[in-house]
């Protein structure tokens, strides 16, 4: 898309000559690795990591391809998580219906919050999303359905479509993998649709897109809702995997973490956020013995990665080989 924005600042990894086929290959490779992963790693951890990875990908759709930095994405992840947990536990819905309910709920929230926040630009947009997310956080803290700081616990995993028993961690992992790949592929399709092309044009040069006759606000709002819905899919799945929905899911630190994951992995790359999510999670897991130093180490890594490889891990690789990943 650089042809319409020759002076774009720090172009994210999508090099001009890049073909989307390398992205598909990268997704396929990732799928293969992930399919084999339970042999080497703990499936329950992997399943949770995939939920966060999907969340990061959904966030990346907005920031990487739409150029909209939301500081409040945890509101979609968290509210979907709560909604799915409530649907599965209190309403007794099967897992697929609970996940669907959570996802749609997040989509509706995205519609409402998008309508408000898209009116502003730049840092003001970010701040409004943060404010809305805090609003959602305090609703989650107070509402009788969310059980305050105890969260919704003991969410039944149930049977998918009444057939597949999700209580087995390995089965669960493959179901989550399927959901994750569905989400990732949807993002791929969105990015490479005419809609996605316009979105990238808006990212590169909004004024020019307006002058070409595009109603940019509508495009941005649509991207916002899509991103929110996919973040909701991730959150709702997480509620079934972890069997709980807690305040952590809606807390602003979760919004911050997803930004970290996306930037470390590579903003505006297809598989970058997935790697970012795994890197951050692995760090949190293996460094947990350092106590509060985890935050310091995380911060240091963030600073180093922003200073030395600005495009993120995958972004730098993509740029080096002039491919799109």
């Amino acid at each position, binding site marked *: 898309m650089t042809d319409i924005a020759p002076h774009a600042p720090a172009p994210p990894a999508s090099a001009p000559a890049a073909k989307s086929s390398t992205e598909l290959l990268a997704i396929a490779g990732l799928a293969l690795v992930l399919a084999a992963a339970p042999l080497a790693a703990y499936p329950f951890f992997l399943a949770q990591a995939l939920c966060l990875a999907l969340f990061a990908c959904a966030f990346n759709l907005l920031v990487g391809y739409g150029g909209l930095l939301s500081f409040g994405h945890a509101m979609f992840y968290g509210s979907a998580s709560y909604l799915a947990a409530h649907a599965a536990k209190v309403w007794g819905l099967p897992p697929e219906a609970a996940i669907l309910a959570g996802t749609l709920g997040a989509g509706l929230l995205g519609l409402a919050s998008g309508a408000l926040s898209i009116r502003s630009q730049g840092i003001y947009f970010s701040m409004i999303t943060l404010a809305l997310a805090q609003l959602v956080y305090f609703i989650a803290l*107070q509402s009788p359905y969310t059980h305050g700081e105890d*969260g919704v616990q*003991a969410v039944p995993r149930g049977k998918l479509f009444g057939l597949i028993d999700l209580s087995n961690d390995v089965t669960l992992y493959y179901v989550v993998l399927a959901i994750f790949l569905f989400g990732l592929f949807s993002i791929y399709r969105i990015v490479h649709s005419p809609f996605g092309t316009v979105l990238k044009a808006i990212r590169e040069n909004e004024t020019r897109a307006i002058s070409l006759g595009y109603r940019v606000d509508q495009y941005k709002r649509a991207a916002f809702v899509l991103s929110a819905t996919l973040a909701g899919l991730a959150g709702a799945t997480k509620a079934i995997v972890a069997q709980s929905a807690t305040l952590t899911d809606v807390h602003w630190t979760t919004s911050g973490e997803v930004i970290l994951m996306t930037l470390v992995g590579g903003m505006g790359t297809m598989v970058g956020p997935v790697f970012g999510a795994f890197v951050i999670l692995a760090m*949190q897991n293996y460094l947990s013995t350092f106590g509060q130093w985890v935050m310091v180490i995380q911060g240091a890594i963030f600073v180093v990665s922003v200073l030395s490889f600005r495009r993120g891990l995958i972004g730098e690789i993509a740029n080096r080989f002039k491919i799109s990943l």
Partner: protein
Amino acid sequence: MMKRSLAGAACGLMLASAGSLFVSAALAQEKTIKVGVLTDMSGPYGDVGGAGSTVAAQMAIEDSGMLAKGWKIDLISADHQNKADVGSNLAREWIDQGKADVFLDLLTSSVALAVNQIVKEKNKVALISGAASSDLTGKACSPNSIHWTYDTFSQANSTGKAITKAGGDSWFFVTADYAFGKALERDTTTVVTANGGKVIGNAMAPLNNADFSSQLLQAQSSKAKVVGLANAGADTANSIKQAAEFGLTQGGQKLAALLMFITDVNALGLPAAQGLEFTESFYWDLNDKTRDFANRYSKRVKNGAMPTMVQAGVYSSLIHYLKAVESLGPTTDGAAIVSTMKAMPTDDEAMGAGYIRQDGRKIHPVYLLQVKKPSESKYPWDYASVVATIPGEEAFRPLAQSECPLVTK
């Protein structure tokens, strides 16, 4: 050819893993116990449980005398960062990878509730010392867990009853505006009115509030005899410090913290905390046994702190668990161990004699303490005097009111 050798390798691998399964099954029959301490190492409750809980568990292992009898007891600990998902991940991992048969401490209710459920599913044991929610022996009770040290009911009940009976018959609450704070206020209100007192009013403060002046001024102008602080952690510390600045206790009002630990008194300092009444299930300076336990503990922790009731509870619960396992012989059947623990009376240096009820509630006396004036404090950590001792049967929620399905009524 290639295929065959691959198949051979696969068979070999399967045989090897099957073999290792047998080996590990055989090992389980040996005298091995795996203890996991899951606590907050870095967050706001790090002093209440944290590294001190690990020390307490280590002391229990040594004091049990089982090492000399040929038992092998492994201790593992981790920081759950007060996040239910981190805690449940760790618990699952430890169980699935055979690293822990019993979970200790479990500070923060959300973590305890999450781990409680996993432990039940996998038939291990949870000995909850750090968490407050009385749901753990109510709706969420489990044949695999024991709620050891205290709960929201006992805190509210003990403090509320003792102070009201001692003449503090009008109350004003400063309440943390979330589930825990509201539960504490509700439970205390019930106790206060049942004992002939009345609640004049309340003021809500958001979680992690920095400025309590509005709430404290309301409390002061209410002229209530007792100001109840239905909050925890940093909120309690902040509200107490600011109450001292406003001269609440000097004005004749009594300050009652509904959940507070001895380490909080240490952090606040006696000038700010003096006169404050709070409830604990353990105080280090109670008798010779507790002093002995506390001094041994104090020598092993970094800052020489005395144990909190949570850490004492970790010690006490592990001692009892080890006794039960010793009497049963090598087993990892969590439900069987817990039912043995319920059948045996408890007795140890830290928490004295007691017993465990059907619903998994450990019963022991609870102490209403008052923070000393700086002039009364004679030696390090001489912070409180015992105002009243409440027998366990009165302190904890009666079985008749329990929502626990394990209770046969």
